[in-house]
């Protein structure tokens, strides 16, 4: 039996990154993360015994993300850049790494939603089987989407 505290400990940071793939604004991203957590908390009693936790958690997170995109397209808010927390490195190292991270998050946000969903789960180290389960698509479909997402991501990162 999984407790919600375990979910926050295990998946909290990953969910924060998933939220950042849907929202650039820091305050809105925080709201989205809380909505994802609340939805997971409510759905947790429906998780069947023996079912994998990662697909369950990321399925809910991505569905909340899609709902958020719909809402934000209505609000037409201007996106601001992702700003990760400072790390204890030399200022130059930090600057380069933070810049790379920021560019990657921005590029992921520019991907079409179906590609964005698979690539974020690949980056969170889920297997193709788990991704298929989380997104409700076939494993071969995951392979196709990952390959296309990677190509688009390469192009976006090269363009910047």
């Amino acid at each position, binding site marked *: 039996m999984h407790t919600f505290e375990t979910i926050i400990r295990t998946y909290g*940071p990953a969910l924060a990154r998933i939220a950042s793939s849907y929202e650039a604004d820091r305050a809105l991203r925080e709201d989205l993360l809380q909505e994802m957590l609340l939805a997971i908390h409510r759905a947790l009693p429906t998780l069947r015994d023996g079912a994998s936790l990662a697909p369950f958690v990321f399925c809910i997170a991505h569905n909340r993300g899609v709902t958020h995109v719909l809402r934000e397209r209505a609000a037409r808010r201007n996106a601001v850049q992702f700003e990760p927390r400072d790390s204890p490195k030399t200022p130059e190292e930090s600057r380069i790494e933070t810049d790379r991270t920021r560019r990657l998050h921005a590029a992921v946000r520019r991907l079409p939603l179906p590609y964005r969903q698979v690539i974020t789960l690949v980056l969170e180290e889920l297997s193709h089987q788990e991704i298929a389960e989380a997104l409700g698509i076939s494993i071969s479909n995951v392979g196709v989407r990952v390959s296309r997402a990677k190509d688009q991501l390469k192009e976006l990162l090269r363009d910047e």
Partner: protein
Amino acid sequence: MTNDDYIALLRRDWQRDPPSQDTIARGFARHRRWVLWSVVGGLLGTIAVLAACISMAQMAFAGHDALLDTSALAFVAAVPVILFGLVALRGRLRLGYDQTSLGLLRQTRDRVETMRRMLVGARWCAAILTAAAMAVGLLAATAHASPSSAFLLVPLWSGTAAAVWLWQAWRARELANRVARLDAVIAEFEAVDC
């Protein structure tokens, strides 16, 4: 560079500087309290309006006062709006689990369409309130109701009817835009599998 190397490189950048788990847990506890209170508030408000509606209807059935009868009719006319509120509230509580994003989008589209259809009730509500305001005015004019009641009720109900009409017009436009946005996102998902 192989594909795996490329993904490994991206992963390193993607997972750099994760947010603190304690901050996430604290934020969640705060958010959960706020959501709970807002849902309870919405539910209590809806129950209060429904209770007022039922008690007015009961008073109208018990007595034979023309003014009360009209009031009850006006309150009963508000029921579609209350139901609309309940549907919206239920939508907020929906989990969105155990289905694909595309399934969720299609389900949301169906729900929005249902809400659009339910706006007909709000139009009827505005029309009935207008008719009720006119009826009270007529009752007062023919000495079947006190002029002071009519002085209060006619502008109140007419104003409410106008507000309900404007609200449903705004809501209909908003829901139509929502359907258009949903269609665009659904097309985005469907295009991938072509």
